[in-house]
């Protein structure tokens, strides 16, 4: 009976398959009202006046909250809106249809202002200011440096200067944002489509000045997040405030077009840099700046720039670095975390640089990486990160072999002879996962079954199954006797939630340690019952020829025969750990149209201990497509006035089943454990980190194979038009 390592199908599936899922919009409370937001058509405008009188007289309208309503309805701070879609008022009505009628009848008098859309232009003197109080659009700039980059550049054989861009993308969780709040006089109950119920709880309590104990947040089924449901949006607080003010349940469900206007966007980073390297392909120095297109509010822009800056050296030996992390305000929705949050960008940048060195020196891309890789961890990255464990060079070599990289290249050559254009790209990545504390409670039930409550908040990853596997092993009981509950702040008092590939590592370790402590308690009780030192295995304590089952011990405690704690809570403080590996992408290019299709994603990942290979596989498949799709399909377009030209799925392309590759992931045969009790490192983001850098190289490779021309692709996405021009222009 050992569950860890087994591909157990998910315990979460039943209710999702059998019509019993409850996403926020599926929940109805008696007397429930519907809320919606009036949003600015301008990217930048002064709000002179909001007139809600006509809306208030419409049938079914209960209330309209405007900037005059005071906190937390302080829409348009400083008297202006800063991006198209920023909320200026909130309408509450008895049903959806009445709501949408009324939203059109709130009149807002705007004075349009010049908008600034491009972060580079936003840094220029005289650019319109997004936030006048700062006196600049640069909201934060910090230097990350080591060694002497200038000197190392001067002594390099070759120096290249250019810009690399990872364009903004929309995380596109299939379920839009939504929240339902009610207040019963004692408790503010909030159902929220979030990745972080405890953070929502703290933010709502703080903003509305109510005790934490009076706020309960339930994360129902959540239809994906990918980082976009990490931020506590003002909408979440305002819906709760409206429920309190109106003394009725209030629900807000974003439409998809609304979601595109208010969700945090991902990526949106640029690297402007100079890199120096030797004619032998050894990277000597990078000097430059990572610029985040933070959007109208710097919620996360600087964090992304800083993460990308500090991860830029990856596991390469370069130690002369001088990187500024800069976040710049623009008239766009705020930038936020999206699957990998800074690590896919850092990997994209450094892997583009490795490919550049290969092109410039004429060396094989594999050889370039071989010459630059740090052999093994632990390794202190020059910008202050401690890489815990791994054999970077040996795993890279094994990854190249395991993915059959050279066979794929040879096959692409052979296919060319048959008139078919394929391209192959490869990347090495190292990424950082897991941070902060996490909380778990394990409770013994009277029949010897166990309830595990966790502060992590899975929403599709299947972590509850993984945690059940860990706890069942630790307690040596059948997994059917372990139930994992999550997403309810009443079940466990604190936690961070699910992001950063940390759930199994931080949440799992917390659960495992809580289970271990509970078992020690039960052992003491068993020894008291048995009258001597006991051993434990498979649910039974033995002392000499006497034995007692774990259920009997718990029952004895509940009946007051012996005393023991029947619940153990663990607050686990996690440290960062660093998964790494190799990703390979094959694309097929139609030179006539410029259209490329991904055919294959192969990977070789060292993610530490694998708790459930099925869950890992699921993460790799979906994550790889997100990275590839960033290169081939997903384009966010704004015009120069800050109008979003890609406001929904009709314009913004999320790949379909016909546009997805095959995935053939392999995991390292000898994984390097993290030092967490689970030994895991996390996998949710790794494939996204690896795949974008590999996909853009694959496209470059295909264009070269089609035309014989060596092209250099510097930004995502690479549209078919651009490819067409590169081929035919």
């Amino acid at each position: 009976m050992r569950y860890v390592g087994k591909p157990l199908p998910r315990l979460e599936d039943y209710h999702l398959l059998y019509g019993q899922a409850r996403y926020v919009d599926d929940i109805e409370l008696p007397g429930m009202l519907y809320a919606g937001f009036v949003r600015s058509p301008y990217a930048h405008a002064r709000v002179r006046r909001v007139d809600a009188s006509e809306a208030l007289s419409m049938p079914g309208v209960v209330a309209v909250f405007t900037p005059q309503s005071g906190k937390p309805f302080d829409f348009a701070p400083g008297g202006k809106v800063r991006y198209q879609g920023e909320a200026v008022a909130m309408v509450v009505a008895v049903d959806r249809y009445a709501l949408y009628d009324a939203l059109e009848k709130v009149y807002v008098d705007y004075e349009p202002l010049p908008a600034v859309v491009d972060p580079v232009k936003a840094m220029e003197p005289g650019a319109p200011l997004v936030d006048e109080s700062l006196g600049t659009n640069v909201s934060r700039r910090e230097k990350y440096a080591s060694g002497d980059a200038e000197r190392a550049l001067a002594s390099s054989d070759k120096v290249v200067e250019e810009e690399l861009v990872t364009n903004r993308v929309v995380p596109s969780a299939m379920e839009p944002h939504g929240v339902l709040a009610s207040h019963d006089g004692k408790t503010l109950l909030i159902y929220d489509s979030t990745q972080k119920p405890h953070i929502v709880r703290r933010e709502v309590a703080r903003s509305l000045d109510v005790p934490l104990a009076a706020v309960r947040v339930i994360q129902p089924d959540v239809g994906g997040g990918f980082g976009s449901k990490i931020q506590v949006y003002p909408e979440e607080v305002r819906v709760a405030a409206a429920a309190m003010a109106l003394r009725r349940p209030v629900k807000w469900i974003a439409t998809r077009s609304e979601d595109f206007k208010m969700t945090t966007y991902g990526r949106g980073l640029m690297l402007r840099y100079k890199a120096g390297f030797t004619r032998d392909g050894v990277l000597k120095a990078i000097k430059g700046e990572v610029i985040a297109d933070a959007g109208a509010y710097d919620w996360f822009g600087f964090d992304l720039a800083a993460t990308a800056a500090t991860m830029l050296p990856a596991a390469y030996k370069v130690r002369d670095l001088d990187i500024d992390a800069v976040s710049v305000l623009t008239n766009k929705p705020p930038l936020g975390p999206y699957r990998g949050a800074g690590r896919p960008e850092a990997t994209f940048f450094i892997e583009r640089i490795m490919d550049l060195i290969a092109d410039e020196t004429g060396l094989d891309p594999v050889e370039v990486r071989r010459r630059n890789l740090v052999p093994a961890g632990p390794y202190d990255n020059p910008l202050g990160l401690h890489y815990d464990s791994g054999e970077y060079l040996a795993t890279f070599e094994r990854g190249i072999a395991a993915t059959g990289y050279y066979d794929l290249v040879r096959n692409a050559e052979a296919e060319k002879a048959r008139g078919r254009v394929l391209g192959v790209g490869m990347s090495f990545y190292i990424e950082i996962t897991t941070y902060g504390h996490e909380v778990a409670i394990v409770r013994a039930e009277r029949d010897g079954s166990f309830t595990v409550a966790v502060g992590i908040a899975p929403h599709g990853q299947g972590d509850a199954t993984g945690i059940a596997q860990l706890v069942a092993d630790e307690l040596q009981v059948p997994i059917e006797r372990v139930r994992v509950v999550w997403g309810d702040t009443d079940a466990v008092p604190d936690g961070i939630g699910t992001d950063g590939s940390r759930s199994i590592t931080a949440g799992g370790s917390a659960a495992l340690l809580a289970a271990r402590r509970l078992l020690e308690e039960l052992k003491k009780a068993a020894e008291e019952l048995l009258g001597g030192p006991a051993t434990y295995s498979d649910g039974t304590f033995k002392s000499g020829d006497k034995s007692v089952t774990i259920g009997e011990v718990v029952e004895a405690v509940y009946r007051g025969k012996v005393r023991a704690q029947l619940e153990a809570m663990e607050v686990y403080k996690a440290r960062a750990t660093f998964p790494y590996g190799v990703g390979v992408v094959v694309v097929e290019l139609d030179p006539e149209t410029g259209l490329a299709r991904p055919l294959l994603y192969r990977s070789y990942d060292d993610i530490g201990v694998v708790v459930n290979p099925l869950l890992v596989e699921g993460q790799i498949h979906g994550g790889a497509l997100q990275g590839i799709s960033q290169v081939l399909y997903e384009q966010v377009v704004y015009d120069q006035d800050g109008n979003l030209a890609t406001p929904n799925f009709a314009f913004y392309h999320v790949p379909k089943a016909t546009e997805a590759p095959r995935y053939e992931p392999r995991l390292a045969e000898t994984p390097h454990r993290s030092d967490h009790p689970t030994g895991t490192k996390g996998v949710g983001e790794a494939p996204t980190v690896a795949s974008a850098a590999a996909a853009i190289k694959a496209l470059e490779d295909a264009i070269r194979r089609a035309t014989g021309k060596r092209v250099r692709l510097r930004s995502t996405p690479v549209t078919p038009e651009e490819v067409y021009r590169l081929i035919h222009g």
Partner: protein
Amino acid sequence: MRIKVKVNGVWYERDVEPRKLLVHFLRDDLGIKSVRVGCDTGNCGACTVLLDGKPVKSCNLLAVQADGSEIITADYSDELMERLKRAFHERHALQCGFCTSGMLLASYALLKNKPKPTEEEIREGISGVLCRCTGYQNIVEAIKSAAL
């Protein structure tokens, strides 16, 4: 307007506003929550139902347009639907589950018309439903295994 529809084998008769979308009628009036709203442009397919056997996007139709029709949602149970659900579970063909109803119905319609589809036909058959979690391969594998 008064309409009559048969949903998962049961007839319902209800008054609806002419402008009410079929998806809202199913969800709000009949309480069938497995039909989901993921977009407002007909692109995501989370609201897919079978209308007289054909997969349609219920957020692109008015409830009154369904008058007299037979609708099947993911809650429908027969041998094929059960086989599909089992295969989705065993092949790990769902993660957040939001697109799953639409996927099940698109694959149900596909296998009804073509019991042994090729991989290309499967991908084509479910291309009206977007999934952001799975990368599709396990869904395709599940449909293949349910087809056997």
